[in-house]
């Protein structure tokens, strides 16, 4: 049973990881804990679903439609909810993010209705077994997408011009602006990118569980936050590591301790890791400027 539970955990963990990537990226660049990320994830899932059912799009087209739509949402949110208070203390933006989250949830309820909607069977879901590991097609797609996105994003942030601009902005926004970087543009691009990643996660998870509903982003948003913090918030490979650790510990905890405590186990691990390594597993300790 151990191997089966381990594969359950890795499957769940890759979902957490996928959600956490966009979240941790936005934090890494703008130092904003984007609590609306879970709801962008939900919007992405709904847009993809609408693309498939209402607009009769091909799966890949609908997926890209969801990502593009969510990117647009991300830019709008940055413009309307974050940029007016960008210079205010961080806590204000944080509260604004939570307000945005509540708005998005209720917005989705108005547009798509409160009930859970079924995602049509779009992918032939076969089950593969290998050395006691068991994985379905969609689980492999999710894991593959996560690894792909982590690689691409790391490349973008580390080796491209816009990536360098992002890192400069994250270090010191004013100095970056003095050096001729259009920081506003960087912020919007970061949000667009982060939101489309969230949408990709939402759409895949929607397909995986075949269920899309307005509150679907709330718990994953929190879990993504924990995964990001465990891995070292701001670190993209860290988000992946954190997600997998959480997924596996939840599955094994539910299997060998008690299914009632699975969320508690995730939080206990968070506390333990933060006590030992406050900046997270792969996070860099940054000195606070006085």
């Amino acid at each position, binding site marked *: 049973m151990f191997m089966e539970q381990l594969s359950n955990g890795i499957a769940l963990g890759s979902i957490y990881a996928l959600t956490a990537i966009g979240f941790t990226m936005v934090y890494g660049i703008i130092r904003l804990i984007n609590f609306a990320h879970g709801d962008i994830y939900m919007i992405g899932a709904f847009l993809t679903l609408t693309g498939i059912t209402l607009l009769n799009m091909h799966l890949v087209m609908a997926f890209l439609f969801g990502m593009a739509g969510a990117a647009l949402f991300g830019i709008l949110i940055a413009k309307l909810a974050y940029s007016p208070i960008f210079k205010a203390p961080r806590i204000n933006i944080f509260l604004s993010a939570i307000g945005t989250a509540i708005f998005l949830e209720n917005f989705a309820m108005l547009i798509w209705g409160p009930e859970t909607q079924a995602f049509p069977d779009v992918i032939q879901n076969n089950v593969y077994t290998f050395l006691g590991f068991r994985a379905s097609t969609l689980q492999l797609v999710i894991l593959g997408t996560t690894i792909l996105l982590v690689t691409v994003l790391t490349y973008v942030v580390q080796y491209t011009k816009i990536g360098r601009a992002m890192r400069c902005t994250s270090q010191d926004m004013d100095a970056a602006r003095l050096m001729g970087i259009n920081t506003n543009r960087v912020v919007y691009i970061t949000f667009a990118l982060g939101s489309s990643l969230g949408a990709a996660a939402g759409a895949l998870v929607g397909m995986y569980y075949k269920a899309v509903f307005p509150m679907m982003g709330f718990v994953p948003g*929190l879990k993504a936050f924990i995964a990001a913090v465990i891995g070292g918030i701001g670190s993209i490979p860290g988000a992946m590591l954190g997600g997998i650790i959480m997924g596996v510990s939840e599955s094994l905890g539910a299997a060998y301790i008690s299914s009632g405590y699975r969320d508690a186990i995730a939080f206990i691990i968070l506390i333990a890791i933060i006590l030992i390594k406050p900046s997270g597993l792969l996070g860099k300790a940054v000195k606070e400027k006085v």
Partner: protein
Amino acid sequence: MKKKYLVYFLLISMLTTLMGCSSTAVSGKNASEIVIASANPMTGDSAQFGDIKVKAMQLAIDEVNEKGGINGKLIKLQVGDDTGNPKEAPNVAQKLAADKNILAIIGHWNSSCTLAARGIYDSAGIPVITDSVNKAITDGTTPHVFRISLTDTAQAHYLAKYAYGQMGKRKAAILYTGNDFGTGLKNDFNAKFTELGGQVVAVETFFEGQSKDFSPQLTKIKAQNPDLLFIPAYYVETALIAQQAKAMGLEVQMLGTDGISSEELIKLGGQAVEGIRFAGFFHPDIEFLGTKEFVEAFKTKYNKEPDTYAALAYDSARLLLKAIAEKGTDRKQIKKYLETVKDFPGVAGPVSFKNNDVERGIIILTVKGGKIVPVDIQAE
């Protein structure tokens, strides 16, 4: 940096409890109106249940209003929102009970919410009809709260007897939702099934709305090789459980409660819920006086099939309207009417209350060819 995280983290834990809490309670101070209220989840995880209940109540009210209302007064439905959260339910209850215009309440849907709010209604002396199933709701301490569905105990006993007797199952596993609804049913089913001579080989839980992944629980259950999986949960989770069980090759007869008695189960579960059996209090094919007309009217107005909750909410609303028509606009008189009503012709069967509980049987339903149908061999 460390300090900042701490602040954020505290805020998150606070906000998790507050998130999504809101309610609408604008009172109509118009004396030419009769107001009854709904206190059900309109936002949050169980919003779809509140939605269909309010639709059914509105249908009952519209039917009376079209005929000119009661004594020339039109009826208005005031909709409160408990968000499905037992912490929010008392606030809604407080607001509704304090409004003197509101004569009676229909709700709450979640057992946990009804349990949290019932004391408030009772001390305000406002009659309530609920469809929550937890047995503690009608323990005699709140005489103003009436229940139109069966208690979890009665339902669990019916189901345990059905599973052991008619279905011939001996080794049951239970996967329940960790709230007052699921825990109550789990305990009673467990007790009755064991008493009959069956064996409960695995008991696993999950938290409503917290997780969509049931693979660790199902893997454990599969290792015990049961011949029945009893799932006291709601349809969203049950559909997911059925799909995930199928994906991992757990072929076992599943048995659910009234919590999954909805067309949505099939929409979400597809092939995986085929053959699942569950209890219901209402089915369009099990006809009582007015059932056909209700189903027709509901479909015409909202373009969807009414489920158990819709039928019970419709009956609750009609019961209250009848009480108001007969006894006048007085909370005390309405309560008296509910206590003494005898075989009120509801679309889900006749309603009379005894010790605040309705007396009714259950219908065993199943999914066959993508449709909910009553099974041939019913419970005794």
